């Protein structure tokens, strides 16, 4: 009984802030409103979303998000390993240093990149000091990738780091006792055991990367539209909540599918799957 009562607030929370909003978005996506205020149930918002121009927007968003996630992984994994191997005293400090920039507002940090990458920015200042020609860093796909990697890297490092530090050391010792060299121990023991952390990190980077509209607005200079920009535009400019909701539903579905695929890849033992972490 007590158990039942104590879950009440959480159920209320989930109903109010998860279930009802998603149902509302779904509801909006399934209707169209006419100019006289009447509405009808239809799939037309979804069929419209499969127009080639919207597919192009979606494809570009997915491509950039996958790239950003991969880069985060290849930088983040070694980083997490270095952190996990540090002396405990330094480790706490190092992890803290990693998290401190996140205390600062996300927008400010992205604006800072604009002054670093700008035509008369810090980087070009160094280049011209060295007698090299100026480079147009800002307003390119590279700038967007950089902004995403910079902003989302901690989300990749921290879950992997947590898994690595909590790993049962005796397993590694056993592997070494049995004659495994460093490479074998890593490939056969450490890496497979860290998969839940990787899955958690990948989803925590991929999800914000695929739906961001601020980074692309600022660092892409509005040159190209990402799926986040498309949704923002439907809600704030066109006032077409129905189409915007349909695109948002499609995006949710895509994320869901990619997460499901990742869980499949993530191993047969349910305890090894990322499910436990997120």
């Amino acid at each position, binding site marked *: 009984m007590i158990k039942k009562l104590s879950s009440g607030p959480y159920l209320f929370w989930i109903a109010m802030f998860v279930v009802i909003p998603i149902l509302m978005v779904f509801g909006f996506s399934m209707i169209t409103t006419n100019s006289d205020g009447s509405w009808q149930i239809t799939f037309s918002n979804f069929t419209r979303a499969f127009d080639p121009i919207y597919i192009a927007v979606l494809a570009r968003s997915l491509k950039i998000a996958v790239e950003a996630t991969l880069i985060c992984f290849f930088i983040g994994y070694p980083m997490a390993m270095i952190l996990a191997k540090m002396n405990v005293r330094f480790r706490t400090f190092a992890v803290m240093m990693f998290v401190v920039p996140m205390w600062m507002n996300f927008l400010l940090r992205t604006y800072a990149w604009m002054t670093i990458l700008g035509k008369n920015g810090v980087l070009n200042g160094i280049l011209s000091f060295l007698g090299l020609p100026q480079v147009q860093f800002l307003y390119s796909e590279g700038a967007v990738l950089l902004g995403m990697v910079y902003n989302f890297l901690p989300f990749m490092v921290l879950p992997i780091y947590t898994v690595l530090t909590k790993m049962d050391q005796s397993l590694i010792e056993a592997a070494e006792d049995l004659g495994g060299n460093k490479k074998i121990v890593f490939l056969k023991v450490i890496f497979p055991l860290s998969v839940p952390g990787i899955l958690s990190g990948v989803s925590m980077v991929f999800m914000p990367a695929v739906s961001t509209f601020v980074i692309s607005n600022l660092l892409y*200079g509005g040159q190209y539209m990402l799926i986040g920009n498309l949704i923002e535009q439907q809600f704030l400019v066109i006032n077409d909540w129905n189409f915007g909701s349909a695109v948002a539903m499609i995006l949710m579905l895509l994320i869901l599918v990619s997460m499901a695929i990742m869980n499949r890849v993530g191993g047969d033992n349910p305890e090894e799957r990322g499910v436990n972490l997120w």
Partner: protein
Amino acid sequence: MKKVLSLVLLVALMGTLFTGCKKDDQVVLNVYNWGDYIDEDIFDIFEEETGIKVNYETYATNEEMYTKIKKGGTQYDIAIPSDYMIEKMIKEDLVEPIDLTKIPNYANIDTRFKNLAFDPNNAYSVPYFWGTVGIIYNTNIITEPVDSWNVLWDEKYAGQFTMVDSQRDSIMVALKKLGYSMNTKSVAELEAARDVLIEQKPNVLAYVGDNVKDMLISEETAMAVVWSGEASTVIQEYDNFEYALPKEGSNIWFDNVVIPKGAKNIDAAHQFVDFLCRGDIGFKNADYVGYATCNTETMKLLDPALMGTTYAYPDDALLENFEIFSDPGDFITEYDRVWTELKAK
């Protein structure tokens, strides 16, 4: 069923919790305005004179304001939308009529700005500021004079200018360049505009919003499509900038004060509108904001050097082909499609 009922009751109870603590002894006027578009000191003056406290909130776009009021549940007493949005809000019954007899200072408003097409008898709105869209350029870098939208298609300026990251404003530039009306409802004309925008895109440094002033000052960009008030802010601080009104015509816009539907303090709102129309208050706002006032009394207080400048009070002759935006209704989806096609390429 009982559970559902208790849930509903709980929500209802929480609702009363918030309304219960509101004091009724002082009238609070809810003002909803563009960010940085009023001198906030005037709220204290207003409270001192009338005892009415002002609760101030801001928005970044007309659409944001519209969406909030349209979805209901708001209690704004004052809002300051632009021309086409006022037209739309009148059409959709989202604004209260304004009783001009309660606003004696309405007489201060320049007759040129009264009875415009979006609100023919000023039955719903009172003029606040007006301005244009044009090209600001850094004269240290762009040495040849600018007088036409065509410079934005000139290969020689590739990568040196920015456009506005706003569908209607950027499409307007292309439509005007082609000699069409910026309120066109012809799909063919819109697609022609799209094609010239796609042709222009490789040369555009960026499509930007509020940060354009910083970009100009830091010489990140040499030329930009801007609203006149932004140009005015930059030019008054830096000598090496000029603002051009393209000869093909452009957008002339008005932001008027309205009383949104759902306002609780209609009388106080009228008092506030009258207060805004006062010469000295108008001056404080014009001085702070930098856009052009619609108030003749305020104009008398302004620096005479501003008169005749392209960015503040241009000669009428320069505004010959200028148009006011009108609400395209459902045709807006065509603008959206064209814009998305440009951005998806």
